[in-house]
């Protein structure tokens, strides 16, 4: 009985602690939501929610009417989703080759690829800019997508995941007359779905939040992605806090929405192989 009671007490304490932690974690988000419902004049005037009579959606209205926010949003969605798709295809293809084919220098290729992860991205920016300039890709969607078309992290992730696929399955497919690409497309990819889910989400977040490279490569406002577009609201002479916060909140929503939609696949991908079958 005593044990039961102490378990119950423990659970209650844990629940309260979790609620408190959740409250701490969510406070800035609630503050952000509250701030977007204030007018610019009230932005820093009330600690949290202003009186109901002062609540307004004017900052959202301004965001869409006084800035090309819809264009920024569409640019971000387009560039991010195409980047993820392209990355997914090339990374999984390369991961498949490195996991299931034997060829000379394979290990050296993997080692070199992994070593490139140690190089800070900033180191390659100048030569990359030069290259893209001569390929006439500066200030274009291609300039944003092409440099990120292959992810070393993705290749490594898929290589590790595809190594778990039994060779016998691939052999059976070959006996059935499948081409090597069919094996990749029809056999390997379907069984790698959990990893694909995790990769998509991680890759989406990376591309969605990308700031430095778009800042360098883009010149014209109609190509700006969301982070660059929102940054325009922070000017040397004026910061439009209300619009900035409304834009930030709207900018976070797609990632949250995607996570909620895909959380099963994401968690499955992260825990794949964690439990011995």
């Amino acid at each position, binding site marked *: 009985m005593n044990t039961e009671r102490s378990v119950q007490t423990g659970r209650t304490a844990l629940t309260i602690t979790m609620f408190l932690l959740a409250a701490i974690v969510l406070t800035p988000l609630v503050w952000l939501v509250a701030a977007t419902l204030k007018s610019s004049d009230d932005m820093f005037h009330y600690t949290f929610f202003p009186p109901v009579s002062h609540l307004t959606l004017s900052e959202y209205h301004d965001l869409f009417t006084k800035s090309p926010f819809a264009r920024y949003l*569409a640019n971000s969605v*387009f560039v991010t989703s195409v980047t993820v798709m392209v990355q997914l295809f090339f990374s999984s293809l390369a991961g498949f080759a490195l996991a299931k084919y034997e060829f000379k220098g394979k290990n050296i290729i993997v080692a070199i690829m992994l070593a490139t992860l140690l190089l800070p991205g900033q180191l390659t920016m100048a030569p990359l800019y030069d290259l893209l300039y001569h390929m006439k890709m500066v200030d274009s969607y291609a300039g944003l997508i092409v440099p990120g078309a292959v992810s070393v992290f993705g290749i490594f992730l898929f290589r590790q995941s595809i190594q778990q696929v039994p060779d016998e399955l691939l052999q059976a497919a070959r006996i059935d007359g499948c081409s090597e690409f069919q094996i990749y497309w029809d056999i390997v990819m379907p069984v790698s*779905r959990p990893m694909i889910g995790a990769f998509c989400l991680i890759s989406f977040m990376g591309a969605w939040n990308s700031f430095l490279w778009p800042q360098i490569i883009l010149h014209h406002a109609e*190509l700006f992605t969301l982070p660059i577009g929102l940054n325009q609201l922070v*000017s040397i002479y004026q910061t439009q806090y209300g619009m900035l916060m409304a834009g930030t909140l709207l900018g976070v929503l797609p990632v949250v929405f995607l996570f909620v*939609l*895909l959380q099963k696949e994401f968690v499955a991908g992260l825990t794949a192989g964690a439990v011995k079958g």
Partner: protein
Amino acid sequence: MRYFPFGRAALSILALAVTSGGWLALQPKPKHHATLTYWTFATTHYDSYKKIIPEFERQNPGVTVDLELVSLNALASRMQSAMLADLDVPDLFEVEIGQSAALFRGPTKDIGLVDLGPRLHAPGPDGTPPLWDRVVHARFAPYTNRGHIYGLPHDIHAVQLAYRRDIFEKAGVDVRKIKTWDDFVQVGRKMTIPGKQYMMEMSDSDATVLEPMLFQRGGGYFDADGHVIMDNEIAVQTMCWYVPLVAGPHKIGDSVGYFGQVQTKAVEDGYMLCYICPDWRSKNFENDVSHMKGKMALMPMPLAAPGGNPTTSWGGTMLGFTKHNNHQDLAWKLAMFLYLDKSQLADRYRSTNILPPVKDLWSDPVFHERRAYWSNEKIGDSYIRLAPNVPAHYSNPVIQTATDKLSQALVDCVHYYNTHGYVDHGDAQFESYVRSRMKMRADEVRAMARRDSY
């Protein structure tokens, strides 16, 4: 899913790509094959130019201008790299004062900017005096290198002090009696309540306010020939005077960061009562702390000594012309249109509060309007009165290093002051320490400057 083996996650993202791609395809982007390309970093400049450039295009048939808004942080380094690598550069561009001199590195013949000297000294159209005679000369100083002028100043940025009029009035302080910094510090000692209220926004770790104080006293980072002078007697005495104001038990200054939400809150709460306020910052206050309308006012900067300079400067923008440009005359015409055309002065001034550096434009009525925010004062008038006194601010390609090193010297001196007892101005030991640290930091700048031996 039979024909799409990547799963639900990838399918959702593919759907997003197709949808957004479709939407973007229906919103084609405009073509940018223009006669002139113009880069600016300030949204307010961008917005005002965007409004009037169609008029310039109308007055010059066949000419098109591509105006681009480029990030402040990216602009100077991008310009520098692009000019060195012979990549794409605009025909005209605006750059912030602190970043401009970085573009003057190397042998003169290799600088990618046009020397504006001949154009500045040439008579204007219809017999108007040369532009050189119409602009406050001090504002050319930051953009002058080895006798060549590489930039046109966009502004003057004379400085006053913005203050919470309501709080001073409640305390019975008449700010008109504050003539010198000594008077100011005396009032500051009375008004400061440690941890709750400070007389002025001043930092103990970055030189943002120390720098204009130095300029006010006739000091600076470099002399007219580009030599480092940030450890000269003026600089040492300024530092000795400044440190006790931001450190120790009698400090009257504090900072919560010069911009952003925390600073906005500090203004509203009266945490700091006075602020260094060049013309452009007065617009920051109007926009970001609009609740203080009618409670704020401006006063002239106190004098360092009777007869001293009543103002200083903070910030600035340079307009440069690249050698890459094949239409130099047209570019100059555009610059004159954007900077001097009277038809758009009023709009731009009201949206930025920035006083143009061309003296004959100041007679426009817009610069003499009363501002309700600033307790109904004619703030344009007061900035105009101070404009001719703005000190020259000489520069050098290593100016960014110099500003960082001045901040480091400040941190050193504040630390010494806090750990070796608090003294008033005139303590020989403290002064000796300040002198040695400033020399050390200045020597670091000199070493950096020697690398650019041209």
